[in-house]
Structures are given as C-alpha cells and as structure tokens.
C-alpha cells in the first residue's frame, strides 16, 4: 500500500495525541486567574526592558553558513545513492564517479576554511575587521 497514506495516518495520530492530552488537562486543571502569575519570569525580579534584545551577530553567521552547507548536502545525497553502481558501471569507473564529488567537496572545504579563518564561527571576541578599515 502507498506508504504515504500510513505516514499521513501517523501524522494524524501525532496531532491527535497532544490535542487529546490538552483536552484531558483542560478538564482536570484549575484556572485561577491572578495578576502577577502571568508576569514574565525573570528569576523573581520585576521584568525589565523588552524581550526583543539584540543578540550576538554570530547567530546570523552560523545561520547563513548552515543555509549554504545544508543545501549542499541535498546535492550530495543523490550521488551517494548511485555511487556504487556508477563505479561498477563500465564507461564511468572510479575516477569519473569520485572526482566530481571530490571537487565539489573541495570547493565546499575552501569555503568553510575561509569562513573559519575569517571568524564566521568564532563566537567570542571576533574582531570586526571593518573596524580597522575606512570603507569608501
């Protein structure tokens, strides 16, 4: 049978179980609205400032890195699937099957090395190089 029907069914289950638990708990739990309960928790102190704080730029850096590298794996998977057949297939051989992916990964590694050396993944005390520069 079509596996996706089953997966869809499991998805349904995966949705129903949490909802069911919510329903149960909404039946048995008390509700005592009270001011102060709903205050944002900051270790018992009175909340100060907003939540939308500016956080470390490095979060962006790794996010950008991830976007690129993770997508590249999409291009690796098909290769892994056909790799052995390609090697054993006559007319292709080991070199023709392996070399392109080596090249691909080499390019990726150059990129990674560059990002590494330029502090894209250096979390603390990354010297913003543009500080030392006068952009024109």
């Amino acid at each position, binding site marked *: 049978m079509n596996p996706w029907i089953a997966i869809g069914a499991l998805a349904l289950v995966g949705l129903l179980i949490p909802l069911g638990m919510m329903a149960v708990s909404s039946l048995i739990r008390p509700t005592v609205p009270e001011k102060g309960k709903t205050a944002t928790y900051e270790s018992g102190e009175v909340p100060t400032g907003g939540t939308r704080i500016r956080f470390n730029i490095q979060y962006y850096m790794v996010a*950008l890195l991830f*976007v690129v590298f993770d*997508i590249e794996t*999409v291009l690796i998977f098909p290769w892994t699937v056909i790799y052995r057949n390609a090697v054993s297939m006559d007319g292709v051989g080991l070199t023709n099957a392996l070399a392109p992916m080596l090249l691909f990964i080499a390019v990726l590694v150059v990129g990674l090395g560059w990002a590494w050396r330029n502090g894209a993944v250096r979390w603390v005390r990354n010297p913003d190089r543009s500080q030392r520069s006068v952009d024109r």
Partner: protein
Amino acid sequence: MVPVQYYLLLSAAVFCIGVFGILTRRNALLFLMSVELLLNAANINLVAFSNFHGNLTGQTFSLFTLALAAAEVAVGIGIILVLYRNFKDVDVNEATTMRW
C-alpha cells in the same frame, strides 16, 4: 495519479501569492520570503512536469533551484543586515538617498 493541470494551478496560485507579497510588503525580509515563494512555485512546476514527461531533468533542476535559492537568501540576508546597520530599518522604502 493527479493530472498535471492541478499542479500547474497550485504553482500558479503560489506564484500569485508571492507576487502579491512582493507588491504589498515593504519589509525586505518579507520580500525575500515572497521571492522564495516564487521559486518554490517554479519547483512545483518542475517536479510536476518531470513526473508528467517521465524524465528526471526537472527534478534535478529543482534541486539546483533549491540550492541557488539558499545561496540567494544567504547573500540577501547579509545585504539586509548591512542595510539595517546603515538605515536602522529593513523597510525597502527607507533607503532612498538616491532617486529611483
């Protein structure tokens, strides 16, 4: 087997949503998301048609499209970041030191 027209309609709908977003939103990030919608509409087409024609060209190409979309976003976010630093805003209409 779903006929290919349905996929075409779906992708057209997604495309139109994207265009609508581009036309109405002034936030650069939302603009970016809308562009992603457009690209994904193209992907839907490609996959559907490649299934319809029975060759894998379209699916392969859609993989490339995905990768490029990712790269585009990477560059775009970077630019928007610098934009925010310079203009303290990501509103595309804020940046008007030059005439359109």
